[in-house]
């Protein structure tokens, strides 16, 4: 028993040492995110940065005259648009609707908002149908504060906050748009100074989980140990 406990303690020590040597996060099942591709990388990513990639796709018009549902992704998967049947107005000649996604380097000043992703401009050969919308999804870096909302501008601006629909996957943020334009994930610039390294809007549950786990072990372990001692004495 003593040998087993000793080996367990050694294994626990080895784990803590090994886990300490890498960035925080067990992320089993999901895996750490691939490095984010920046148009204008923050200083710490400048040496290793790869340029972001555009996306291109089409949506066919069904024989019923309704544009088929579909999705378009950038080649690196960092931005996408998904839509339901009839989301786009069908061209008169029933030709497919062409959708393009391009990361852009120049954009209006996002006054009061810190952009946490690249700015992606979405265009389509046919506009979104009245009363319909398209789901815009943007991934963000796992190394920097996360965006709290999706922001959008049309033509030359200004930016406006279009909220978010929640995350469908780790390190991504989505919002519904009733017209295409340019989109980015961001958070209030004022939050940056007070939350360096913090994922704004993200969960803060881990320290609580740790505290609860330790509390449970201590609180339940004491009576269990007493019971075991009593039963061995008896």
């Amino acid at each position, binding site marked *: 028993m003593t040998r*087993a*406990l000793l*080996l*367990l303690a050694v*294994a*626990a020590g*080895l*784990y*803590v*040492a*090994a*886990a*300490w*040597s*890498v960035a*925080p*996060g*067990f*992320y*089993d*099942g*999901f*895996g*750490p995110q691939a490095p984010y591709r920046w148009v204008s990388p923050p200083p710490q990513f400048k040496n290793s940065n790869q340029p972001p990639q555009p996306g291109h796709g089409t949506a066919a018009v069904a024989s019923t005259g309704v544009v088929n549902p579909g*999705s378009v*992704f950038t080649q690196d*998967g960092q931005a*996408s648009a998904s839509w339901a049947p009839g989301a786009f107005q069908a061209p008169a000649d029933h030709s497919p609707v062409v959708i393009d996604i391009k990361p852009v380097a120049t954009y209006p000043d996002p006054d009061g908002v810190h952009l946490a992703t690249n700015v992606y401009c979405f265009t389509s050969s046919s506009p979104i149908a009245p009363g319909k919308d398209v789901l815009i999804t943007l991934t963000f870096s796992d190394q920097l504060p*996360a965006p709290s909302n999706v922001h959008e501008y049309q033509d030359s601006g200004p930016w406006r906050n279009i909220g978010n629909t*929640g*995350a*469908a*996957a*780790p*390190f991504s943020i989505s919002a519904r748009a009733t017209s295409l334009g340019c989109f980015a994930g961001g958070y209030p610039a004022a939050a940056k100074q007070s*939350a360096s*390294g*913090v*994922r*704004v*809007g*993200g*969960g*803060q*549950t*881990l*320290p609580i*989980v*740790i505290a609860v*786990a*330790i509390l*449970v*072990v201590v609180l*339940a*372990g004491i009576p*269990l140990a007493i019971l075991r001692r009593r039963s061995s004495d008896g």
Partner: protein
Amino acid sequence: MSLSAVQGGAWSRPAALAVLVLGIEYSRVLAGRLPGMATASLLVGGLALCLLALGRRPADLGLGRDRLAFRVLGGFALAAILLLPAAVRWGGGPSLPPELAVAAVAVSVGEEIAFRGALFGALAEAGGPALAVLGSTLVWTAAHALSHPPAFLPAVAAAGLLLGTWRWACRDLVGPVVGHVIADLSL
């Protein structure tokens, strides 16, 4: 029957299980990279891993209701150890949406049943407890090679070693299941 044939038979089960586990894990990771498949791949992968325990008695897997309080308590202790290095340096993170949380539970349970349950049991039968701990840790690490960058693999291996050592020392799989689930849900 020759000795080598007997030995070959003893090794065929853990070898087949290792190949199956790796195949399921790699398929799950690759499928999860397809658009919209993240949750489904985790759910199906977790279920497929659980199926590897079919035909084995719960006791052989380390499952049982005896000492349940101790087993569950051990799970909380394992979770605290698994999460400690991240918690100390924690800067916040995105919360898992409900569907991904359910998928994370499925894959955590599936991985424990496959690695520390079925594979551990088969390796222990073939070569004893030391081989079971080290062999299941080796396959567990290899299974994460696609989903984690090389720099993370020593930490993954150390987590496998810790969970495998608990499985051997306490003859218990409930603790690793509870610890793994809490760890995955929290990060």
